[in-house]
């Protein structure tokens, strides 16, 4: 049932939606090329080694806040959730199918970014593959959970969209995704290190292109999982299907 529902999510919201296909697959590459030249100052390989994990991290934020949060708010506004609510389909299956669809899409996007990085910009992925996947999964869990909260606290799709934008865009710029935090004055960058998005993106970069083991980031991982748990518990309490 979960797989059937997930498959329909792909078919309905990706394959039959040309615009969505473009945004999902072409935009990350577009960002990579643009930012590499904009921030690279000549050494695009070094810039890409920084940007590829950053862009993947930003994709994770987008997945949580837009891919799950705004989608849920839209489903509620379009009264799709109400119809599902009347069927015996367990709510968690519907939710899990949406997350699974988004995670699979993320896996594709990350692979394309990683491939583009290594082919065009000679980025070396020095880390352990399992570490990379685990870190990505932890981040996805955290931001899916916080994204669900976005869908739960907002009443309309528009307000969900606004909230998601307000969270995603600044977070991506302030969380070491596109711009290295050490370019900020330390009084600004110090508090930014407390953001879950910063901790996730730094950890992801550490285990992918930084050559660090996952264990280096144990504390941050625990903090991220706390965010995930908090978001989940709160969403479960306040999320409305109808």
């Amino acid at each position, binding site marked *: *049932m979960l797989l*059937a529902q997930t498959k329909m999510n792909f078919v*309905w919201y990706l394959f039959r939606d040309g615009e969505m296909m473009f945004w999902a697959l072409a935009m990350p590459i577009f960002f990579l090329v643009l930012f590499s030249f904009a921030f690279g100052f000549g050494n695009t390989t070094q810039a890409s080694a920084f940007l590829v994990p950053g862009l993947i991290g930003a994709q994770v934020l987008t997945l949580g806040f837009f891919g799950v949060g705004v989608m849920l708010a839209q489903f509620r506004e379009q009264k*799709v959730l109400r119809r599902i609510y*009347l*069927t015996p389909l367990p709510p968690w299956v519907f939710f899990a199918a949406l997350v699974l669809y988004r995670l699979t899409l993320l896996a594709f996007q990350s692979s394309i970014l990683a491939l583009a990085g290594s082919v065009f910009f000679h980025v070396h992925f020095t880390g352990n593959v399992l570490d990379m996947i685990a870190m990505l999964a932890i981040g996805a869990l955290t931001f899916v959970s916080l994204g669900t909260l976005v869908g739960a606290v907002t009443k309309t799709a528009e307000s969900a969209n606004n909230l998601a934008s307000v969270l995603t865009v600044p977070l991506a710029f302030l969380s070491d995704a596109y711009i290295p935090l050490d370019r900020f004055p330390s009084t600004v960058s110090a508090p930014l290190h407390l953001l879950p998005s910063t901790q996730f993106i730094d950890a992801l970069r550490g285990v992918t292109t930084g050559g660090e083991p996952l264990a280096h980031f144990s504390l941050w991982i625990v903090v991220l999982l706390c965010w995930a748990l908090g978001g989940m518990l709160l969403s479960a309490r306040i999320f409305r299907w109808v």
Partner: protein
Amino acid sequence: MTDPSIAVTRLVKRFGEVEAVRGIDFEIMPGTIFGLLGRNGAGKTTTLECCIGLTKPSSGCVRMLGLDPSNPRELARLRPRFGAQLQTTSLPEKARVGEMLELYARYYALRPATAALCERVGLLGKERQPVGGLSGGERQRLALALAIQHDPEIAFLDEPTAGMDAYGRRVLWGEVEHLRRTGKTVILTTHYIEEAERLCDEICIVQQGRIIARDTPARLIAGAGGGSTITVEAEGFAPRNGIARAGRWRHEAPGNGEGARWVLATELDPGPVLAEVVRAVDEQGAQLHALDMRRATLEDAFLNLTGERIAEDAEAGAA
């Protein structure tokens, strides 16, 4: 004594300041086609939504098959046992008709019988059409198919023919007849008089969140001064002798100056009365311009009970 399929007790639903449902009670026995008839905004849909757990009652309670739909756990047990076609739900625009039917079959752990179902609701050949490309009536028929595919014990139909053409209404009426034959309970809301009169075993007339009358269509008509109206336009005619006692005669100003118009309201069987009228016209040597007989309808009963017409588009709906 069998238990009712649905029992609604002192149901009240407030939305902020607005009291949409103000104390509704009814019981529906298994196998009944039950109609909530009322104008738009009378509280019919809210009542229906309380019955299936989409809306939480402000006070009062609902029991469906002995279970409480406002309790999530009991609602989970009820879901496989009822089906609903609601105005306030929708389907993904890019999903195809066939996909929806197959997916819903899986929700109910059924083997999909898509072609047969499409044939039943007149969507044969539309299996590959996306929901977004369906007409309003086709969407309604798809919603109907999704509501009855799993052969539920109770079907909730909210304004099921709104936006449907004559063909769609026939399909729906046929399916309701099918549900009746198979002993299912149907609860439907409508503001189409003809639909209520034709389909329902019992009707509740809802006005401003309250039930103001509940009976079979025939008894509602009879109770609200049912009977017939005979209109005679004939020069030189006057109700005299036997036909004068057939009912209440009223003299009306002629419509076009072509002689008098007499209107008779009678409780008697209109056939023989009509024959008497024709004989009287003949005997009086009057010249007949127009003769019209109309039995009282549910519309008349509704007007009498509520003091208002059901809807501005009632004529369009009955067409």
